């Protein structure tokens, strides 16, 4: 008798039952999907924009506080997805004093909010608040993705207020043919989009674009769901990611219009033609130590769009760090917890004089 075959079948079916049984139990037990739980206080606000200060029990090892500027696209919570996958918590535990700007959720009242308002207004106000609060002249800036581009612009305009600059998966050279997003943005009729949406570009519109970059990603993710659900940790991680992806803020139309036109379409920052508030932004003005971090398999911000940062600034102390994985893996990957935060901490500690 093909008893072995039967036993194998038996093993298979028992394994599947185990998987489903665990999955059912796990999903039944989910009451709440919580993200961004690192303790924090709101220390400053301006309309919808808030400045958070993350709490720490002891004195920070690195005396100069770090201001994190995330992108306007998507939410900063990716940096604090869950306690064991939280770049924020890890940075705090590595001895840093972390502040973070929450850009909020723009609505129609914000349609005329400009890049000047964000960079010369919000970022500058937050920097000044921290300087004043700590009685210091300079802060450390950590810019993420588009927030990194903002940080570069800010550092070029206000070099006296920045001690060290870290850019994480930050695009600067937008003349890129490899990234689909960069290609599509070049062809985009951004005036029609912004005006058509009545000056406020919905988050779902942006998400559709991101989805199309890897059109079967969601299918693959859902296909693996029974196995994902069988593991409580993986299930919660999956649900948190779903919530983060869904929580996509709209974009203030005028800012979006200008960023697409002058960055993606005209690549003005790299060419030295970009102006903000009547001032020309020259990245060559950046002389502070700079750490540029990019993700090797980043399909949203390909490495080639990031790497030129170190060539464009005139800093003598500059470092380029490659990180394995994709755009999001930088924040939630296990390697991020083990390697990235300690590397940033060490780099800052060495320059914290």
């Amino acid at each position, binding site marked *: *008798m*093909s*008893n072995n*075959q*039967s036993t194998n*079948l*038996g093993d298979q*079916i*028992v394994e*599947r039952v185990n998987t*489903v*049984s665990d999955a*059912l*139990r796990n*999903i*039944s037990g*989910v009451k709440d*999907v919580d993200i961004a739980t690192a303790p924090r206080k*709101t*220390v400053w*606000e*301006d309309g919808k924009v808030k400045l958070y200060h993350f709490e720490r029990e002891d004195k920070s090892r690195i005396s100069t506080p770090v201001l994190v500027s995330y992108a306007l696209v998507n939410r900063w919570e990716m940096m604090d997805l869950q306690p064991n996958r939280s770049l924020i918590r890890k940075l705090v535990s590595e001895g840093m004093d972390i502040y973070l700007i929450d850009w909020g959720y723009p609505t*129609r009242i*914000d*349609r*005329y909010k*400009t890049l000047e*308002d964000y960079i010369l*207004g919000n970022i500058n*106000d937050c920097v000044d608040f921290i300087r*004043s*609060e700590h009685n210091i002249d300079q802060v450390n800036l950590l810019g993420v993705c588009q927030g990194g581009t903002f940080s570069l612009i800010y550092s070029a305009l206000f070099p006296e207020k920045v001690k060290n600059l870290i850019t994480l998966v930050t695009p600067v050279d937008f003349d890129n043919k490899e990234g689909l997003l960069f*290609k599509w943005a070049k*062809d*985009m*009729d951004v005036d*029609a*989009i912004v*005006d*058509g*949406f*009545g*000056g406020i570009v919905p988050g*779902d519109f942006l998400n559709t674009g991101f*989805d*199309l970059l*890897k*059109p079967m990603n*969601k*299918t*693959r993710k*859902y*296909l693996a*769901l029974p196995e994902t*659900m069988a593991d409580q940790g993986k299930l919660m991680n999956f*649900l948190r990611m*779903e*919530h983060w*992806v*869904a929580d996509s803020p709209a974009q203030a139309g005028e800012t979006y219009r200008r960023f697409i036109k002058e960055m993606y379409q005209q690549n003005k920052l790299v060419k030295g033609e970009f102006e903000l508030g009547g001032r020309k932004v020259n990245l060559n003005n950046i002389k502070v130590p700079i750490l540029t971090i990019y993700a090797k398999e980043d399909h949203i911000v390909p490495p080639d769009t990031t790497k030129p940062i170190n060539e464009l600034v005139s800093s003598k102390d500059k470092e380029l760090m490659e990180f394995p994985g994709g755009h999001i893996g930088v924040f939630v990957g296990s390697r991020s917890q083990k390697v990235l935060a300690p590397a940033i901490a060490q780099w800052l500690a060495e320059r914290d004089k």
Partner: protein
Amino acid sequence: MKNQFDIFFEGQKKAMEFWNNLSSQMAESVKTNGHDNKKEKEEAQDLFTEWFKKQQAFFEQAMQSGANPQQAFEKAPEQVQQWMEMQNDFAKRWVDFYRENAEKMGLKMPEFPGSYQPSTFFEEGVKNWKNWMEQGNQWASQQVLDKMPFNMRPHYTNFMETFDFMRRYWEPMQRLIQNGLFTKDMVDKYFTPDAYQKVVNQMMGFRPIGNVSELIENINQWFENYFSFAQQGAGEWGTVSDAWKEKMREYMSKGNLPFFEMASDFNNRLRDQMLPFYNIMAQGRQTEMAKLMRDLQFAYIAFVLKSAELQSKVYEAGQFALPDTLRDFYKQYKDKQEMVDYQEFFQHFVNKLENSLLETLHADDYSKLQSEVAAIGTQIKSMTDKATELMGADLPFLTKTDGDDFAKEVNALRRKVRTLEQKIADMEKALLLASKPAVAKEKEETTASGRRTASTASKKK
């Protein structure tokens, strides 16, 4: 409506019915034996009776634990393990018994579903458990759906529908794999282009355009109805439009190709030709509305044409993904004589499809077309908003345009306040540098552009 436990028990009941039927057939086989092989007959009956009793006890226990859902889920793996062991044990003993006694007893082969092979015999039972598993999966999916953010649910539902839809074709796909039939023409016979387009639509989130000519007819009809209604109070003014529309109808009925380019061009010409007509009309809300509605009509037709063209490109790009998938698995089947399972097949197909689509998504013409679709789509939205405002202009409500005015004013004021704040800060600094007392340095800062919250209103150092 069934709840998850009904589904759970339905699966169990199905499994039980199968084994019951099988048992009856076996008992019958022993009873109808004309020979007087009492000992064997009793042995067979004992074997069956023992197994059946065990079976009954097992299911009773399963049913009892099923009364408590939590317990049912927790005990399910253990129970299935016991059940599998029971079946294994029984199958082995039954087969041994049959080998030893069949000829002597002159037993007829019971009419099992499928010719009797121990593995088949076992697999039949397993099928029922598989059904239960699938139903359990469905319930679990619903649970996942409930915990997902609302705007992610359509993605998940689309995936589930696609996965289930393609599963319907899994049987013929297996035959194609086994027989090495993977040319596109052959595959199309089993998995039609319509079925393929349905899958792509769901995966890409497309709303299928369907029959373009028909849809344009419907759009025109809808707008004509609107204008007929409007004309009752506005007189005859649509002659130019009518003439052009008639020409368009004639042109389209001839089936000229390339359809999308021609139709799109035609639509644009029509729109441009209409402009002078509106310019010489009297001004006023009614005229503005009429013009806007015509613009909407043309924009919508342009949107339909461009969307259809875009979708066609995507369909075309992925059309060989399924034949290629079948070819890959045929090679595997030929080498190992093992059929891949559906999930692996689906995953492979999805990967193939994505690779094909990405080539198209990277193409220049696709990028431009996508941009046009997005631009026209948002223009339609904007025009619809404007039309709504015009229609409701006499009503005492604030419009989006009013809201925009507020937004503009607020932003301008905010900027002015910020500039003033910065000027004050510069003055303070200058005063400090000049060794004069700082102004209001110790007071709590509360400004229009930024304020400290109470929780951290500590004094400056």
